[in-house]
């Protein structure tokens, strides 16, 4: 094994891996490159692989001539609300399903699991009708509410709670702690790593959700970032630099979130897919 990992061949394959990775992510680099160019330079031949000179004029234009700041705000509000409520609801539900004994628990769990087998996309029409009837289209609630029931979080929390030693909660309860106290004082702190991983991956998913916000929000000021940026493309004339500046601005939050919380994201993916 040692000869395999330190042989020159292994080093070449590692160098090629990094090279392949750079090629793979090149389109993102190319977008950043274009976004920093003055418009005439974007169609220059031969194309320039670094912006010379770099300029922020397209960013300036987008920030001042579109509602992108407003869309950021909308995305932040709805994402925070969805993630916090999903975690809270899932924690409580999973605790009941894991730790409280009541009749029909197993049937209820199977019912919940079966409900989650229903693809989100096939329920869009009745969901839209419902939210319109509740006068919630073009409101934050319209985006948030249907996203609050999340399959994965409940199942994951239940799996982790099932593995908690019984003695812990028993001891706390003998000292007079109620179920809510046991949940938030013992179960939550002991499963903090999972909560963090879930929070990060849920944030990325919710922030990036396109289909539902696109359907339920059709006025420009209520759009989220992923929906809003599809509105900025000018119908006449080409503005590659401007389009790429928009794309880069829209990409920043989740990219930063990933770069900062790389390990949590990896954990999040691993636990959401059952590999712990």
């Amino acid at each position, binding site marked *: 094994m040692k000869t395999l990992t330190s042989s020159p061949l292994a080093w070449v394959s590692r160098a090629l891996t990094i090279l392949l990775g750079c090629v793979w992510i090149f389109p993102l680099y190319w977008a950043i490159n274009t976004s920093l160019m003055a418009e005439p330079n974007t169609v220059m031949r031969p194309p320039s692989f670094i912006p010379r000179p770099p300029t922020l004029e397209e960013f300036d234009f987008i920030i001042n001539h579109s509602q992108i700041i407003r869309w950021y705000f909308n995305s932040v509000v709805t994402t925070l609300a969805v993630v916090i409520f999903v975690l809270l609801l899932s924690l409580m539900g999973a605790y009941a399903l894991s730790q409280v004994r009541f009749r029909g628990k197993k049937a209820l769990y199977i019912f919940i699991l079966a409900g989650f087998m229903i693809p989100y996309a096939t329920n869009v029409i009745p969901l839209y009708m419902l939210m319109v009837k509740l006068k919630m289209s073009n409101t934050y609630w319209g985006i948030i509410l249907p996203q609050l*029931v999340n399959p994965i979080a409940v199942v994951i929390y239940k799996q982790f709670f099932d593995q908690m030693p019984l003695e812990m909660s028993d001891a706390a309860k003998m000292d007079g702690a109620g179920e809510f106290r046991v949940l938030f004082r013992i179960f939550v702190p002991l499963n903090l790593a999972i909560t963090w991983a879930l929070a990060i991956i849920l944030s990325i998913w919710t922030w990036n959700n396109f289909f539902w916000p696109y359907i339920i929000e059709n006025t420009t000021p209520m759009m989220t970032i992923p929906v809003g940026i599809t509105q900025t493309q000018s119908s006449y004339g080409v503005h590659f630099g401007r389009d790429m500046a928009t794309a880069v601005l829209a990409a920043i939050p989740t990219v930063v979130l990933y770069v900062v919380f790389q390990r949590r994201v990896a954990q999040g993916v691993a636990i959401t897919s059952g590999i712990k």
Partner: protein
Amino acid sequence: MSHAVEITDVPADTRRSRKLRTGNPAVAIPLLAPFLVLFLAFIVYPTVRVIMLSFTDADIAGVGGWIGARNYARIVRDKDFWLALWHTVYFVLLTVVPNTLIGLLFAFLVVRMKRFRGLAQALFFLSYVLPVSVVTQIWLWVLEKNYGIINYIFTLNVSWFRTAVPAMPATAFVTVWWTVGFNVLMFVAGLTAIPREYYEAASLDGARGGFKLFRFITWPLLWPVTSLVLVLQLIAQWQIFNQVYLLTFGGPFNRTRVVLLYMYQQAFNQQHGGYGATISMALFLIILVTSIVQIRVLRVRAL
């Protein structure tokens, strides 16, 4: 270990702890109620409603009358639906297995890294965290006909998303580029979970060469992850909408119109809520049947 058992044994009087556990079933109500109310409102109710709608001629406001199975009679004979279904099948074929295999390949490369492992993983994963509309804007530029860098490098003049033949493969490729990172992370987690001793034992037993180790150790031990990735992929790709909507808008000449896009157009553009619901039901049944078959055939353990 034995020490811990001694300590915890003290309060764990079994009779007592069972009494505490069974203690008060009513406490489940405040814990579960918020979740269940939302579950009923946003999962169960819409599911029942979409079934009912599929038997009506409702508009997109939900107003309409019962027309029996007429929508179903219509969908069976609807050429546009079958064409959309075929396009979706084509997209599924172009994405599910390639996305899994490319994810596996990248994961192999990542786990062989030493110092720059985090970097390699980030390079393959980063595109996954981008919003879909950012991904499509980037690729519309990279694959632009006259000024796109790809056509420039390969001295081509292809209009990738507006020509019938390359439109769907190009859309599938963009999808793989966007989503493969998730599969990479799953495979990396799966690969690192395989104990090193297995490989050492196998090489002691004379299994030389990478292929044999892969065939008899890596592949079977990784199968739970691989099969899970395949199932998740299939469910996700049947529901293709965003990338097609943003890259080709179903064109050219509806050549990339997929089932969900057809549903969207029927329901939201043409105001046919009832027929849109019928298309939703068809897609739902297709997803249900194919994933059950897949789970059986692949013997998925994780689900």
